[in-house]
């Protein structure tokens, strides 16, 4: 399962451009026909406080008191569309699929609702329709795959007034990210979040401050997470073979001399 950076789409999210207007949040709801959940003014702007089955993306408002001044960061959050997604490898029924164009899409009719994808995703992205009795689905950003298929830009990207998101092939997106870092020394923190995390994601981020300050998980290893399970899974045929042979041999060896099972059992009666 490898992603071709040349053909697969990606997005550069340049957080230094975000003005926190939440146009993206609304555009996403509009295109994806999402409804709402009850919220309150809890004292922060982030609302809904977390992504949920009706909210594929939101802006996280991070207030950062500083001695010398103030800072307020706006962080757009959605599925990262990993190059080798943990969720896809975790799903027992191929309900999640990494498409060759980039989006990680969901085939609801396959899903059994085991929620292993939610456990597996390093970015806490898939959300569940807990309130539905019969047909609860997993929900997450679709990368507007139908729009991409029709050569349209994803809804949130289209609507963004300040062009926070740069959309293109993954290769081009990464090139742009590096170019911006080089062209404006001092403007950006040196990391490109998503370039390496979990083996690389299709959505990558630039920020002016270290990502840990923005609530990003910076402990995600660079490995493609599915490779960790695959390392175990791919041993199965050998293990099974080995076990069968070994057990048969042991059984033969240990049981030579004793009579058949039937008699053994009969004797004990």
């Amino acid at each position, binding site marked *: 399962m490898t992603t071709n950076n040349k053909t697969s789409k990606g997005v550069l999210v340049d957080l230094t451009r975000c003005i926190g207007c939440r146009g993206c949040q609304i555009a996403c709801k509009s295109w994806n026909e999402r409804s709402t959940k009850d919220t309150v003014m809890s004292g922060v*702007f982030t609302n809904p406080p977390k992504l949920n089955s009706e909210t594929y993306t939101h802006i996280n408002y991070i207030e950062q008191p500083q001695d010398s001044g103030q800072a307020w960061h706006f962080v757009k959050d959605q599925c990262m569309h990993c190059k080798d997604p943990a969720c896809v490898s975790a799903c027992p029924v191929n309900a999640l699929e990494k498409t060759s164009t980039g989006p990680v899409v969901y085939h609801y009719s396959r899903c059994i609702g085991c929620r292993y994808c939610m456990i597996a995703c390093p970015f806490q992205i898939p959300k569940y329709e807990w309130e539905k009795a019969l047909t609860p689905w997993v929900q997450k950003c679709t990368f507007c795959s139908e729009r991409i298929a029709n050569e349209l830009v994803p809804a949130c990207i289209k609507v963004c007034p300040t062009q926070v998101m740069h959309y293109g092939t993954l290769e081009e997106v990464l090139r742009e990210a590096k170019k911006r870092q080089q062209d404006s020394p001092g403007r950006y923190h040196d990391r490109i979040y998503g370039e390496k995390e979990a083996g690389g994601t299709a959505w990558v981020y630039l920020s002016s401050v270290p990502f840990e300050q923005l609530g990003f998980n910076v402990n995600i290893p660079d490995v493609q997470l599915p490779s960790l399970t695959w390392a175990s899974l791919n041993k199965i045929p050998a293990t099974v073979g080995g076990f069968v042979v070994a057990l048969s041999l042991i059984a033969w060896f240990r049981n030579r001399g004793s009579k058949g099972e039937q008699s053994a059992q009969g004797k004990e009666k």
Partner: protein
Amino acid sequence: MTNHWIDIRNADVILAMGGNPAENHPISMKWVLWAMERGAKLISADPRFTRTSARADVYAPLRSGTDIAFLGGMINYIIRNNLYFKEYLSRYTNAPFLVNPAFRGPTDLDGIFSGYDGKKRKYDKKSWAFQKGAKGIPKTDYTLNNPNCVFQLLKKHYSRYTVEMVSSVTGTPEDKLREVYRLYASTGKPDKAGTVMYAMGWTQHTVGTQNIRAMTIIQFLLGNMGIAGGGVNALRGESNVQGSTDHGILFHILPGYLPVPKASLTDLKTYIEKTTPKANDPKSVNWWKNKGKYITSYLKAVYGDNATKKNDFGYAWLPKLDDGMNMSWLMLFDAMFKGQFEGFFAWGQNPACSGSNAGKVRKAMEKLKWMVNVNLFDNETGSFWRGPGVNPKDVQTEVFELPCCSSVEKEGSITNSGRVAQWRYKAVDPVGESKSDSDIMNELYFRVKRLYEQEGGKYPDPILNLTWDYGEKGADGKVKEVDTHLVAREINGYYHADVYDKKKGKLLGRKGELCKTFGHLQADGSTSAGNWLYTQSYIQKGAKTINMMARRSTKDPTGLGLYPEWAWAWPVNRRILYNRASVDVNGKAWNPKKAVIRWNAATGKWTGDVPDGGAPPLNQAKGTLPFIMKPDGVGSVFGPGRADGPFPEHYEPLECPVQENPMSKKHRINPTVKLFFDVKGPHDEPVKEGGLAEDTFLTCDVRYPYVATTYRVSEHWQTGVLTRHQPWLLEMVPQQFVEMSHELAAEKEIRNGDPVTVSSARGKVLAYAMVTSRFRPFKVAASTVHQVGLPWCFGWQYPEKGDQGDSSNLLTPTIGDANTMIPETKAFMVNVEKA
């Protein structure tokens, strides 16, 4: 806006002050960021750290209502440090003009200018006049050294605004002030541009106009007017508020900024004589000299063939204001409260929530016999009779609701802040029985007209003589459906006869054709123009009519983002006003890299943007001055036209946290504001029973110790009638909130998210605490002043759950700006308590 949205990208320094573009004009931030990515700096000066501040290079906090001090300090800083653009200042502004030696300012008179009459709360402006030479042209000293010249007076006036003094008034740390001043003043170089993005944070004050004047002075000092990336840019609000102002929605102006006739201007001739400015300087274009042509053409548009030379073109039919009469918002609702109206059309508005001192507004409506609410939805205004604390049985007002369709259900133009009139098309059919505003007006007009025809009336002429050719008429004579194109054409205007150039005898246009430009408009009734500023917006080439507003070309020959063939801008498609100030007297651009216009000596013509008049550069014989709308042709550093002084002076808001004005002990508040509640003493304290209980105010009162302001959020629109029905938007901002500092919250034992009561001398609202480091206590004159802020997008009616809190305008005062009467909803005093 003197410039336009895209032009912001040409700036080197952008000051966002008195406006919050990131939240209220998000698209504008595209151009701000564009500029920033090419090295420009953004300054945000706001009482609280906003989403604009989040992107700014420098953030400076200031206490609400102290912008003049802040900007006065900048003027002082620029002058003291010699950072002004002298060549520009001396040639293109009235800085070198000599003022009447009798003129005195607040430095000498402890807070006021000469000529003040305390009883009338008005200035006699005689001493503010310019000294005139033999030809009636103002005297000048281009060295700017004459002690009576405007520049010296300016220097003297603002010498009191030292950084230390300013800081003690505004609460801005001194180093922040210096940082902002240094940065902004860096645009005083010829090749640097600084722009300001402001809106309600500046206007909604008793000194609103002067806030903007202060900035204008700075822009003149730094040579930032007329250039690319410069200007004084009001980020206008409601999508078409620019268009509606252009077309005369305000009580004191007719379309095209022609003054509304006063009762004493009894005939057209008097009107023209009294309202047309005169200029004796041949270098001054004094564009308003054409007013006679414009008012006549306007009358022709309104009354058509019924307007003849004989009947003064129907001037008598125009409604008149009594002399001195002011019919602005606060006055209207005051009159309504006092029972002076029978009926009221609340047309596309929600005063029950948007009106300052909304409690009074709501009570005022109870005094009406009838009210018509023309709106997309029922709102707190249409349902005022069943609002909180109102018993429907006690209300006699008959309320009619006329469902109106939304902007996407009708065709027409909207004019944005940059004066660009853009044609928009209908996207979907109106829902149900709703009609467009113009069709509702059409119905109304036809019925009123028929009543006059059938029953007569006191004065039927103004109605019966109106032209109403907006579409095909039925048998009853009624226009079946309004065709907005016909309205647009009427606004543009027609030739009502073959019109010839008076000097050259050339044919300008044939009878019946659409008028090509306002240069062709005539004072003899041979042309019409519903709004002279829009003549050229809908033109005719032979038999073909061209809707200039519908143009969509993205050609950009100058590379400055003028896009001259994208829609159409008034006047005459000029994208940057006063652009003749972008070049020196020889016609050479101050900044050749961003030349708005260029003089081509060979052709004798300007290229680039449409210049303010085609005359050659100033130093040539026929050259003209750049500020063509000003009688003197130059920018007004000294502005004797304003009610409250030729230079902005700091006064405290009606309700403020300090006992006395730190700048002048004797005058706490703007001495010329119209008071609704009597005051006494040097500190303008409220007199006991000094007015209606509803208009009470309390200043520096322990019961209301915190400064408050109101503002918008990106997620809601205005009073929220369009957005509180939207679950997606409500999900993001579901309830009224009040932002406050950690320090204040700790003092009041309020935690994040707690329900709190915010109260003022006039009312109280429920809000949810948002405890944030984005608000910080201010150090004002050695004491700590806390400020809080609330959005004003809520009302009691929606969401239906009802826990969202009512309009924050229940708190705001009845007081307005001395010049415009815009209510002071940006600075008042409140208390906050845990609910």
